[in-house]
Structure formats: structure tokens, C-alpha cells
């Protein structure tokens, strides 16, 4: 671990699994404060499971997740929800729910049974709508929006939660390229302007390298490599982890690593 960085989210000997299958075993991990960390790895490597474990959606078999130095298992779930927001993969909203109604639900951890919603709640909802540029669409039903707008609405809901840490599971799946970039740019701005710590699972290595301050490469439930994209990405890692031959070049726009797969079509010619 780099001693110059603060780590807001850490795990100690964390084991996670479903039913009998153990997916992650004895994992030690540290997520740096105020950075964008991207989890990458092949299908089934446990990256989504790890994200769920970090977000206390699944109970650890063993080990502990620490948020800001305190175990999340010993804190009330509402208290955690005020520090850590999360967006699962492909969330679904009931038909007819408007963007503003959805975003307002991000205020749940600040409200109680006998507590009316406060002006502070209203401000947080409007702020979340503003920063995601969803204010004008606030009264539209979710199902009438484009995929990118819908994803921005869900992100706005997580933002209304007003947490320092945001966990996102594949926030760009099912979006076309332009909408993917739109969502990733939004997350980058949130990180830069508001200093939010972002942890996300991404499938596209190039986007992970472009937007991540730090990559965590996973294979078979273990961390295979971690560090900045420049430190981590190379052809032998892609071969080992993804079982794919490739060349790594510098992204001509951003200078970050770009993975060019070789594939049989070219190799055979």
C-alpha cells in the first residue's frame, strides 16, 4: 500500500460467496480516498461480488469491510447509507415513476418514520438533478427517457444520498458509446469537483484506463494486479487474466493505455 494515500474503504481477509460457492477468499484490499478506482477482470472473476461485499449487499463469510476505519458490520445500515451510496447493475423502477420521485428516494437514510422530509432533503434532490443535468426532465417518467438519461437519473438518486463514496456496478452496460462517455464524464466530474471516491466495475479496459486513477485487476476471486493504469496494463497481464493476445498502445487522445486485441482474423492473415 502507498503510505501517501488515505484509504476510505478497506477489507481484511474478506471472504464472500453465494450458497455453497465461495467466490472471494481472504481478500485484503484498500480503496484510496478521493480517487476513481475501477475493478476489471473477466466474467465470473468476482468483481461484482466484491463490489456488493463492499456495499454490504452480501454478508461476508469471513473477514471485515472497514469504512473510514470502522467495521461496516457493526454500524447501523442507515449510518452507512449516509457515507456510502451504491448503484447496482440494471436497476428497475416501477412504471410511471418520475425522475424527481426516484431521486428523492436517495434521501431515505436521512428520514425516519415520524420525520417529515426536510428543506435539506429538497435542496439535495435539486442539487443532484442539477449536477446530472436532469432538472428539466424531473417530472418525466423514467421509462420515457433514453438509456443514458435514465442512468443519469439513477446516478442522481445515489448523489442525493450525499455520500463520500459511490459504488457503481457496470454503470455503462447497455448504453451506446456516446451515452457511455456521457455517464463516465459525469462520474469524472463528480470526482474532480466534489472529491467523491468512486469505485466501479467496468467491462471495457480502454474506458477503465481512461477514467480510472487506479485499476484493480481481478482473476478467480483474487487481485491479480493493482495500481495506476500505466503501471498495470501490459500485454502479458491481458494474456494472463483475459486469455487474450493484444498489443498495448498509448491512447492517441488521452495517452492512457489502449488495448488492441490481435484475434484470429488478423493473426491468420
Amino acid at each position, binding site marked *: 500500500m502507498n503510505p501517501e494515500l488515505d484509504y476510505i474503504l478497506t477489507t481484511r481477509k474478506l471472504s464472500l460467496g453465494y450458497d455453497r460457492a465461495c467466490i472471494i477468499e481472504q481478500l485484503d484490499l484498500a480503496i484510496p480516498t478521493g480517487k476513481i478506482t475501477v475493478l476489471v477482470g473477466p466474467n465470473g472473476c468476482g468483481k461484482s461480488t466484491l463490489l456488493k461485499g463492499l*456495499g454490504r449487499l452480501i454478508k461476508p463469510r469471513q473477514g471485515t469491510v472497514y469504512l473510514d476505519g470502522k467495521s461496516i458490520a457493526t454500524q447501523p*445500515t442507515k449510518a452507512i447509507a449516509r457515507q456510502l*451510496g*451504491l448503484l*447496482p447493475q440494471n436497476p428497475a423502477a416501477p412504471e*410511471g*415513476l418520475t425522475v424527481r420521485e426516484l431521486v428523492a428516494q436517495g434521501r431515505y437514510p436521512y*428520514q425516519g418514520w*415520524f420525520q*417529515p422530509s426536510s428543506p435539506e432533503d429538497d435542496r439535495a434532490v435539486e442539487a443532484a438533478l442539477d449536477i446530472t443535468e436532469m432538472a428539466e426532465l424531473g417530472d418525466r417518467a423514467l421509462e420515457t427517457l433514453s438509456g443514458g438519461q435514465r442512468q443519469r437519473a439513477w446516478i442522481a438518486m445515489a448523489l442525493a444520498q450525499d455520500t463520500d463514496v459511490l459504488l457503481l456496478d457496470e454503470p455503462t452496460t447497455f448504453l451506446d458509446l456516446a451515452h457511455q462517455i456521457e455517464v463516465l464524464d459525469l462520474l469524472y466530474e463528480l470526482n474532480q469537483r466534489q472529491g467523491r471516491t468512486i469505485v466501479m466495475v467496468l467491462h471495457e479496459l480502454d474506458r477503465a484506463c481512461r477514467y480510472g486513477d487506479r485499476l484493480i485487476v481481478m482473476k478467480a476471486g483474487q487481485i491479480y494486479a493493482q495500481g495506476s493504469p500505466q503501471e498495470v496494463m501490459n500485454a502479458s497481464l491481458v494474456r494472463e487474466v483475459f486469455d487474450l493476445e493484444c498489443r498495448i498502445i498509448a491512447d492517441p487522445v488521452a495517452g492512457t493505455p489502449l488495448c488492441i486485441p490481435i484475434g484470429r482474423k488478423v493473426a491468420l492473415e
Partner: protein
Amino acid sequence: MLHLRSRFFSIRPHRQVSQLLAILTVLIAVFLVLSVSYGDYPVSPLDVLKTVLGLQPSDADAAFIVNTLRLPRALVALLVGIALGVAGTITQGILRNPLAAPGIIGINAGAALAAVALIVIFPNISVSFLPLAAFGGGLVVFASIYLLAWNGGSSPIRLVLVGIGFSLMAAAVTNILVTFGNIYAVSQALVWLAGSVYGSSWDEVRSLLPWLAVFVPLSLVMARDLNVLNLGDDIARGVGCPVEWRRGLLLVTSVALAGGAVATAGTVGFVGFIAPHIARRLVGPSHGGLLLSAGLTGGLLVVVADLIGRSAFAPIELPCGLVTSAIGAPYFLYLLVGKRT
């Protein structure tokens, strides 16, 4: 936008919630008066109002007819409808399934089984035990569904499927009781099973009212929980909702309301299914406004159904449950067909 805030809960009217609630209240009042005034011995609506307000009606017999015979029956219809509407909204919300009304996941069938068992096996027992028996029956079915469907957290689809199974089983056992029971007790049970507010008195009003007084407000304070549960378990957990116990408490609330309604009027079909659908179309899926709207819609439905049941083929009376099913079943089909296209 209008914000209603009180010390205990805040309801933010979505689109036209407050207008809708006002319209429903007026419609309910109108149909209550019509229902009480209609009958073999008509009482003018003005006399109905006078009697209810404690003034001297022009017709001397009106007071007896209104207060003793017709008003309690109309009020029971209203309360049963409200209970079923709210109960249906809760189950549809937490199971994230528009088909999951208490009648469909077996809660009503369990409640009915317990009540029929009470009538048939212990014919001499006081009717005032019916609500408790029905609540108990509904709760047993619900607890069994929940335990069987439980697998490290209960998935909505599993709950619905297991619920349908229990619904069929409870109906089968009810049939056995009806087939082999004492003929007089069975005929009483059959009238009741068809879903009727026939012969309701102030006793029924008094036995049903406490259930509503406790569980309708409880459902309203849990509207936010219902809203986040409606977005899926992961989102609900993510915003800090203790999912399992909130869902459990909401289901108990739903069982209590459905059980209370079933105990009083038998299985008044499809109200718990339709009322939330109609209300959702009018005010959207946010539960703060939806629960109240669906409750009042349910109340209006049963009051109107009872009036239709009494007037359509007079002097023959149809049980209101038959009327709601006659309206509800086609609506159910309409929804299914509409979903496909």
C-alpha cells in the same frame, strides 16, 4: 406543488393526489347516501343526511332504517374496501408484482379457511372471533410462504409462486370442510364465502374499525420503505433500509388488513387487485399518495358494488363480492391483453 406536512408523516402529492383524494371522498359520500337511501323502503337522501347529522328527518321511520339497517352495512362495505385496497397496494409494492394481491398470494384463502373452519367446526362460537381467526389464518399462510420461499432473503417471484400454491391448498381444504360439515353451518359459511356485507350491523363496524385504525396509519408511515423496496432489494439495502424486517412488517400489515376484511365480509374478490391498479394510473407509483388513493378507490368500489348487487336484480340480492369479481375479472384480462400489445 402542494406539500402536506404533519408531525407524523409527510405526503407529497404527486400530480393530482390531493384532487383525487378530494374527488374520491366526495364520490364515496354520494354513494354512501345513495346506498343508504335505496331499498324496499326508500328514504330520501335528504332524510339520510338529516339522520346521519342527528337532525329530525321528515319521515319518522327513517332513523331506524338508516341507523340500524343500512348505514352500518354501507360503512362496512366502505371499510372492507379500504382495507383491501391498502392491503393490495402493500403486497403489489413489496413483491414488485402487479398481480400480487393478497387474494392471489393466498392470504385471503388462508384467512377464509380459518374463518370457515371456525364456523363449521365450532358453530356455537361467537362471531366476534372471526376477525382474529382470519388474521391468524392469513398469518399462518403468509408465514409458511415466507419460510418456504426464504432462501437467504426472499425473492419476489418465489413468494408469488409459493403463495399461489398455498392459495390452492387452502381453497381445497375449505372445500373439504364445506363438503363434510354440518349443513346449517355450511350454508352460513357459503354466504359468507361469496363475499357479502349482508346483514352487517354496528358490531361488524366496531370489530373492523380497530384493524384499520392501527394498520392503515402504519402503512402510511412505511410508505418510504415501500417506495425503496419497490426499486429492488439491492437499492433498498443501499439506501439503508433494513429490508427483511421492513418487508416482514409490511406483509403483516397487509395480512392484518386483508384478514380483517375477509373476516367481516368473506372474500370480496379482486378489490385488492384492482383498486391499486386504478389508483396507480391516476396518481403514479409513489406510495405516499398511492396508499390513500388505493384505499379510497377500494372503498368506493365495494360501496358501489354493494349498491349494484342490491339494485340490479332486486328483490334478489347479489353479494358484493360477486359484483366486484364481475368487474374485476374482465379488468384483469384487459390488463393482461394490454400488457402484451
